[in-house]
């Protein structure tokens, strides 16, 4: 009898241990996913912050450039650099066949004329002299240099030819291949060529969308929250508004995209693909988040504050506007920033309103067509070229960096400025 009891007790204790173990492993699994995730993104993305340059000697021959003696800056500006750029690439192997010459040309980006031109504009006295110029390597060579591209594949399965590899290895031996910080990733707009693609256009698109979103959502949401929390009579209609707000917070984001498409673009005829429409769509999405945050922080202001103000003869509106609302601002602001961070990561609604269009200019206002960072991730992830894989990861790193910054900022506001009532 006693033995049975002990057995039962032991099995109960074992069950207890097992249950705890399940709990621990659940948390472990969740954290493991997070770690794998972050590790994967960083390990594929960090190489994108380096860019491979080929240092090619370029002879600035006045004749090939069709320049007179003592050319003015305008002449240098207007000159045709294609021939000398081509010539300096062909000179890497003087006996190259026509096909091999084409391969040589493809070793650098199609920006090579512009890079040579810039060099000469910086220093016009170079005419007639030879100088080493940094030229952007093609994305395939860039990947080869970073070791992301398998070299042992048969030639017909690679995008880099054996000839290109041979020349490239020679250049490496001569120390003419250099890896530097990839500034163009941050300053160039999107491009079809992976080596020239940057996030400047989508970054500006994101900034404009978020600004439009902030300008629309913040005032409306704060005013609405003030009304619902401080002035609204308790009746069926305010209940209806509340149910509406809570539901909107859980409506799938793509439905807001359909709203943008069906109302903003089709009915109001706003310009497609612009951060203006994107921002309005996102503001409708963030509205409930900010309203809920603002109401919570209005609720947290103790009634004694209101009672004191009312006792001094302030009207209800004065009490609210002069005392309650300022005291609730830290909570509201941090809620707003968190809402904006959500909006910053949103993709689906922006795709539906056409912000997925290929934009190779940097937008200067919310009315110019643009993409946004998450949409840029989607566009690059869908394209087949190998060079874009690291760009996607790098873009994700930039986006995550911004989200972390925004959330930190929200935390700081909350902890630094929020008054603790107790």
């Amino acid at each position: 009898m006693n033995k049975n009891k002990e057995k039962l007790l032991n099995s109960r204790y074992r069950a207890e241990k097992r249950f705890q173990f399940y709990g621990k492993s659940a948390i472990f699994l969740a954290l493991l996913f997070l770690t794998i995730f972050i590790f994967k993104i960083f390990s594929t993305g960090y190489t994108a912050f380096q860019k491979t340059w080929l240092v090619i000697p370029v002879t600035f021959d006045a004749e090939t450039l069709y320049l007179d003696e003592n050319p003015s800056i305008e002449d240098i500006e207007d000159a045709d650099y294609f021939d000398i750029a081509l010539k300096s690439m062909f000179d890497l192997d003087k006996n190259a066949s026509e096909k091999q010459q084409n391969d040589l040309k493809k070793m650098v980006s199609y920006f090579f004329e512009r890079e040579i031109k810039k060099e000469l504009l910086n220093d016009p006295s170079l005419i007639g002299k030879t100088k080493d110029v940094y030229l952007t390597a093609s994305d395939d060579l860039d990947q080869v240099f970073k070791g992301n591209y398998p070299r042992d594949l048969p030639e017909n399965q690679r995008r880099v030819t054996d000839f290109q590899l041979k020349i490239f290895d020679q250049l490496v031996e001569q120390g003419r291949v250099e890896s530097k910080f990839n500034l163009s990733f941050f300053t160039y707009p999107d491009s079809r060529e992976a080596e020239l693609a940057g996030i400047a256009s989508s970054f500006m698109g994101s900034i404009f969308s978020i600004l439009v979103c902030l300008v629309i959502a913040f005032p409306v949401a704060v005013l609405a929250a003030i009304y619902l929390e401080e002035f609204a009579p308790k009746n069926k209609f305010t209940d209806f508004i509340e149910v509406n707000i809570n539901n909107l917070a859980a409506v799938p984001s793509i439905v807001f995209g359909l709203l943008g498409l069906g109302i903003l673009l089709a009915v109001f005829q706003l310009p497609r693909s612009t951060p203006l429409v994107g921002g309005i769509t996102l503001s409708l999405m963030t509205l409930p988040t900010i309203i809920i945050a603002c109401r919570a922080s209005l609720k947290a202001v103790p009634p004694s504050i209101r009672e004191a103000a009312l006792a001094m003869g302030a009207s209800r509106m004065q009490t609210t506007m002069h005392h309650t609302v300022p005291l609730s601002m830290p909570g509201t602001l941090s809620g707003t920033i968190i809402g904006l961070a959500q909006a910053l990561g949103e993709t689906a609604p922006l795709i539906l309103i056409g912000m997925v269009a290929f934009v190779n200019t940097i937008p200067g206002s919310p009315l110019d067509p643009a993409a946004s960072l998450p949409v840029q991730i989607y566009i690059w992830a869908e394209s087949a070229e190998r060079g874009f894989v690291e760009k996607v990861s790098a873009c994700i790193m930039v986006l995550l960096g911004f989200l972390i910054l925004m959330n930190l900022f929200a935390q700081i506001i909350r902890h630094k400025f929020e008054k603790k009532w107790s």
Partner: protein
Amino acid sequence: MNLVIFIFIVLLGFTSYYFGRKKAYSIQATNTRLTALPQFYGYYLAIWCAIPAFIIYSLWAIFEPSIVKLIILSDYSNQGYLNDELNLIYEKTKSLSRGQFTGEITPYLETSAEKYLNLRSIAQNSKVVLILTIIIASIAYGYKRISSNKRTREPVEKFLNAVLFTASLAAVLTTVGIVFSLIFQTIDFFKVIPLFDFIFGTHWYPAKAFVRDASETLDPSMYSDTFGAVPIFAGTFFIAFIAMCVAIPIGLMSGIYLAEYASTRVRQYAKPLIEILAGIPTVVYGFFAALTVGPFLKDIGTAMGLEVSAESALAAGGVMGIMIIPFISSLSDDVITSVPQGLRDGSYAMGATKSETIKKVIFPAALPGIVGSILLGVSRAIGETMIVVMASGLAANLTLNPLESTSTITAQIVVILIGDQAFGDPKTQAAFALGMTLFLVTLCLNIFALRVVKKYREKYE
């Protein structure tokens, strides 16, 4: 020009605030008792100055284009043009007047363009005159009220209250906007495709409806058997099911552990770390699923002799599950912590172990709340877009094999609407009909879940 008027009104509003306040001070200087604080006189005058002008301004902006269009097109009214042709003529007129027209310029068009420019300048001038008159009249009225020391605080506060109320309608308006944007296209869609075919048809192949000449007339028989949404509904619920298979055990167990077992230190670090998973944008999950998880599962499958699609439902669903873990864990954590301590103490007093207490007492007590949180998770899984678009298939495939690819409602909406859309095309309308379905399903889930959670909270508060 519009911007100038706008700024002008705003500046005038600010100036009239100062005028109003100054007037109040001057009344005060005559030893008369003011009926409100001086700044209310300022607000009062500023509101009178700006608001009527803004109302006229926006009404004008809304109605001017359509009235101008009406006048221009009245010249063509009895020449038997179709509606679309008239619209085209109007567009041509507009671009000609801007000097951007490249097509053939007919004399008719030229007169229209001239008339258009003329009308626009008349409209512009009369707008300026009208707004100025309104401003002067309303300021004069407001100023008179102030001078006679009438009450100003009450009207100002009433006005503010009205503004606050209008702002609170924004949420309702958004909902109305969603319904409106979906409903017309959906109704048009069901005029062509019978509702029955949509709900019970088993072939979803919208591309077929698109392959046709623009000149061809719409033949409804062409669309039969192209818009059967069963494979998509099945795919949506299947992927959501896989996601919940990942999210419920992990989310629930970590929620229980955090609420019942974890020390404050572990809780302090683990909870925010898990919540990071909820803050990662979904497009990032999509990239992760498409680039890492999909090929990984494919490799494992090939090693085991199974045929696994690189865009398997398992990859999309699994990654979606990871995304939903934090929702379920933090919601169930909240729910479990709000179970009264008395229930626990009672169970411990009877000699139950901690896990027995959780399983037999706390879990049943918290069940409604947990069910609510799971339903919210399901609604999120159904509405999730980017993971499915990037990691799952785009062809609707009626299957229950997690290793094959399927498609979902959200993925189909994106596939159909990406790029240029032609409104009025059954394919575009189909996307809106799918959107309507998605909205209704998630709405029901949300309302039900929120109600359950709310009831539960009220029970223990």
